């Protein structure tokens, strides 16, 4: 059992100089507002125990620089240390880790510019550097640290345990089995397997001496070689599948992260297509319009030309009338003159009497008096007007006004659409930025489909190899039996007996692991359910059921599983699981939780604080006052609340750890 006694942190993040936190059994609450350094404190525990710090930002490269005290950095001091005093199985330990600049480095550029010193003292003796890592791994293996040091983000990973396809679920499952002690049995099984291989080799060697067996032995050796190849291939493809599942997960995260950007890129491409098609259509319409607009000037002149033509027509008519009249009278005079001259009546063709002649002469005289001469000038004018009329008529065009206006308005509409679409494209460009990443983002769906296909192919391959392994194993069994049935001498008999014993032992361990796993799952389910019922205030949720990965599902009163649990319940289940694991694990230690109530409502926060004492013998809670009520925590935990500290702001770069609990 691991138990913290004291943590001394020196110049670590905002914690300037040396600051001390003491721990007793029970719950220690460290209160701190956002930005005071709660997560850094969790990191200090992690660093002390495991020698690693969890990066908050994936982009942060120089992690160690950011862990040096922020005020010291301004003075060019780059070093920090953490000293943890603890008891392990009753023995006192003191662990000190320190990072400082390598000799010759004044201002670090990267983590490589730092060097680390680690000291471990057990009781009164210093543990050698060789044994140090081994000791620390025994006390707190990194793989199980997730059950002792965690924040809200880590808790949310437990949701993945319900999904068999996620790589993280298998990782957490391994961690859970590790904390529950399953690897001890697995290691034993591996040892038995190794022993079996050794005995099998001896057995084959002895059996080979028997000539009659040599052919079967040859076949058996080939089968064993084949089995070994198949197992290697199986491991290789399984590993490859795990890598692909990991890649799939990364792409799925990326797909989800870039969902909005991808939708915008898709929308942008649609808009760009629209712009192109509208621009092409506009060019076509413009070409047609340009053909018509060549004659637009004539259309514009139409009214004035028409008006002029009317005037010309009128004048031409008047002139022509005068010309016609003059020609008629002149013609009449000519005809009458000819009658007198020929002495013949122009109508009846009889000889004219004197009386008739007189009458005709009078008529001629009267006509001559009536006739108005059509002058040369009038004749020229008429010709001029007729010429103009022809000119104007020649340029008359059909009324293409409507056609032009129609084309023009279609072009205007398209122009508005194009400008509108371009505006939207600009908005999208400004919104999504970084055009160099578009292609990568756009390819995500394609990559995802490829990976799913790869996983399917790998699954098929693994199934096929698995089948071949079973077949080869069965073949080996048949061959072995054949050898066994042949004449055997004492030496062979002895090794055969040994082989059978090891095989029995192997089966025993296999069954043992399976039974132990089932029992563990049963116990974890039972304890997690009890804890869950204490925390949950939903009366319809009566139990938790466990799956192969130790993922827990909520069971309704009617026996059905809740498939759509909330983020808050996700949290409660994770805490219930951690509590249950602590109760069933051979390895137990203090739990350090950073802001664990972020997703929980008031009732659940209170229920969890009330249940804190049952999670572990030592619980260290990093919380802000709004997350959980101070008075309620004190009242509920009562004597279970052993210490309280507050992270007090000295400046934006300096936090002081002060004792907070009001002494009663």
């Amino acid at each position, binding site marked *: 059992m691991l138990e913290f006694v004291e943590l001394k942190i020196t110049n670590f993040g905002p914690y300037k100089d040396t600051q001390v936190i003491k721990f007793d059994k029970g719950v220690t609450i460290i209160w701190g507002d956002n930005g005071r350094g709660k997560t850094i404190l969790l990191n200090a525990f992690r660093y002390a125990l495991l020698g690693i710090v969890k990066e908050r930002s994936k982009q942060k490269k120089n992690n160690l620089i950011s862990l040096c005290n922020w005020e010291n950095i301004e003075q060019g001091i780059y070093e920090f240390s953490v000293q943890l005093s603890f008891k392990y199985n009753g023995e006192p330990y003191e662990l000190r880790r320190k990072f400082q600049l390598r000799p010759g480095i004044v201002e670090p550029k990267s983590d490589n510019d730092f060097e680390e010193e680690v000291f471990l003292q057990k009781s009164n003796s210093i543990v050698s550097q060789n044994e140090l890592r081994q000791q620390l791994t025994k006390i707190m293996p990194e793989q199980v640290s997730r059950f002792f040091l965690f924040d809200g983000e880590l808790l949310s990973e437990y949701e993945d345990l319900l999904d068999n396809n996620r790589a993280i679920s298998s990782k957490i499952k391994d961690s859970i089995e590790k904390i529950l002690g399953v690897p001890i049995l697995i290691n034993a099984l591996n040892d038995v397997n190794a022993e079996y291989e050794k005995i099998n080799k001896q057995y084959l060697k002895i059996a080979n001496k028997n000539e009659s067996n040599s052919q079967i032995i040859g076949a058996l050796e080939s089968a064993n070689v084949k089995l070994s190849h198949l197992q290697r291939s199986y491991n290789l493809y399984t590993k490859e599948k795990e890598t692909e599942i990991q890649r799939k997960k990364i792409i799925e995260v990326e797909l989800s992260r870039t969902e909005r950007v991808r939708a915008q890129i898709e929308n942008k491409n649609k808009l760009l297509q629209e712009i192109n098609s509208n621009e092409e259509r506009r060019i076509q319409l413009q070409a047609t319009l340009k053909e018509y*607009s060549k004659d*637009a000037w004539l259309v514009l*002149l139409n009214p*004035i030309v028409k008006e002029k033509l009317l005037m010309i027509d009128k004048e031409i008519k008047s002139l022509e009338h005068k010309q016609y009249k003059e020609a008629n009278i002149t013609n009449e005079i000519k005809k009458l003159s000819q009658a007198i001259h020929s002495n013949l009546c122009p109508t009846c063709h009889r000889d004219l009497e004197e009386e008739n002649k007189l009458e005709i002469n009078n008529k001629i005289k009267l006509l001559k008096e009536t006739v108005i001469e059509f002058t040369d000038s009038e004749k020229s004018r008429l010709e001029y007007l007729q010429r103009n009329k022809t000119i104007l008529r020649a340029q008359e065009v059909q009324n293409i006004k409507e056609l032009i206006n129609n084309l*023009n308005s279609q072009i205007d509409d398209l122009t508005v659409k194009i400008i509108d679409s371009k505006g939207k494209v600009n908005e999208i460009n400004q919104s999504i930025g970084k055009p160099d990443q578009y292609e990568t983002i756009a390819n995500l769906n394609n990559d995802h489909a490829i990976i799913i296909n790869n996983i399917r192919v790998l699954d098929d391959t693994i199934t096929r190899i698995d089948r071949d392994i079973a077949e080869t194993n069965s073949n080996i069994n048949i061959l072995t039996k054949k050898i066994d049935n042949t004449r055997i001498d004492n030496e062979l008999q002895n090794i055969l007996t040994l082989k059978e014993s090891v095989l029995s032992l192997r089966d025993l361990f296999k069954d043992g692991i399976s039974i132990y796993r089932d029992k563990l799952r049963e116990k974890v389910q039972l304890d997690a359910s009890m804890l869950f019922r204490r925390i949950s205030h939903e009366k319809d949720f009566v139990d938790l059921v466990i799956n192969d990965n130790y993922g827990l599902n909520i069971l309704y009163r009617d026996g059905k599983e809740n498939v759509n649990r909330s983020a808050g319940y996700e949290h409660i289940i994770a805490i219930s699981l951690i509590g249950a694991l602590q109760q069933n694990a051979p390895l137990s230690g203090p739990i350090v939780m950073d802001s664990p109530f972020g997703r929980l409502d008031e009732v659940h926060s209170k229920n969890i604080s009330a249940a804190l004492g049952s999670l572990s013998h030592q619980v260290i809670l990093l919380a802000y006052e709004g997350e959980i009520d101070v008075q309620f925590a004190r009242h509920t935990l009562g004597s279970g609340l052993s210490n309280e500290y507050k992270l007090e702001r000295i400046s934006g770069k300096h936090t002081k750890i002060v004792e907070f609990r009001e002494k009663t």
Partner: protein
Amino acid sequence: MADIVNIGLYPTAHTTASNLLDRFDTLIDVAKYAFAFAVKNKVQIIPVDISSTESKKTVWNVGSVDPDGYMVSLIGIIFNNTHEPYKQIEFLINAGLLRIHEMIESDPKFDIFSLL
């Protein structure tokens, strides 16, 4: 005095005509449209200010602008004037374009074919 043999556009008229090339095929098409507009609206009512000191930006041979002589005839018919017709045509083209320029200036959404 002999008539001109080349017809040109003054700078503002040239810019205005160039800006209309999305609706007309050539500058000559725009020039003729402006000429017709000036004729239709009777040149005297168009307030024009063509500075003779400005150099012409685009110059065409009269045969390019009026290949069949219709514009010259029209000047004669409409204005009863046959004295230096190409000078008049040039004036009317530039005057028409300046008026169009003013209309575009006062209304950026001005539609050139609304004159029809």
